[in-house]
């Protein structure tokens, strides 16, 4: 998880946006549409990021197919400190 976070956030093209998604979900669970609006990123792009984040067990989503909510996983919470380290120098 720790390495996945480093890689997903700092080494990839969408890293900064993924970090912003995690920040947004820290406030409250949201669906892809809400995230797209809040971060001013396209819906498709958000969906792609969510797939990546789900694949690495950073977020999980509810069962419903319409407007499904995304949550940060319990496992991610254990690594919140790593996340803070990574995003320390980010100006959000």
């Amino acid at each position, binding site marked *: 998880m720790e390495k996945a976070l480093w890689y997903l956030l700092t080494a990839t*093209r969408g890293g900064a946006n993924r970090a912003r998604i995690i920040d947004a979900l820290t406030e409250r669970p949201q669906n892809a549409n809400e995230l797209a609006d809040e971060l001013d990123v396209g819906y498709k792009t958000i969906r792609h990021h969510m797939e990546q984040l789900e694949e690495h067990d950073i977020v999980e989503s509810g069962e419903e197919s319409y407007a499904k909510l995304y949550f940060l996983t319990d496992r991610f919470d254990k690594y919140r400190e790593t996340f803070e380290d990574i995003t320390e120098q980010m100006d959000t």
Partner: protein
Amino acid sequence: MAMGTLITAAVVLAGLNTLLLLPLVGVWIRNYNTFGTGLVGGLVLFAVAMLAENAMAIYFFFSMASFYSGDPGVQKVVLILRGLQFVAIAALSYTTLR
């Protein structure tokens, strides 16, 4: 002319590597500015070094200076190394840009 073919193939690969490395360097420099972490700094250094090597090879090829010896055995090794570089860079591009 087998020798010429080998070195030409190596230069074509160097061109492909250069094309792939440019967006990688761009992404990583941008992320380094965002996060400023050691990991992505290392990725920038790695990509820049590889870019310099490949660009240099192309430059020497076209300026006709002999960078590598004219020995076909050596050229074969260079070609294989270039091929390995290409596979490595392509894999990195896939994970970085998707």
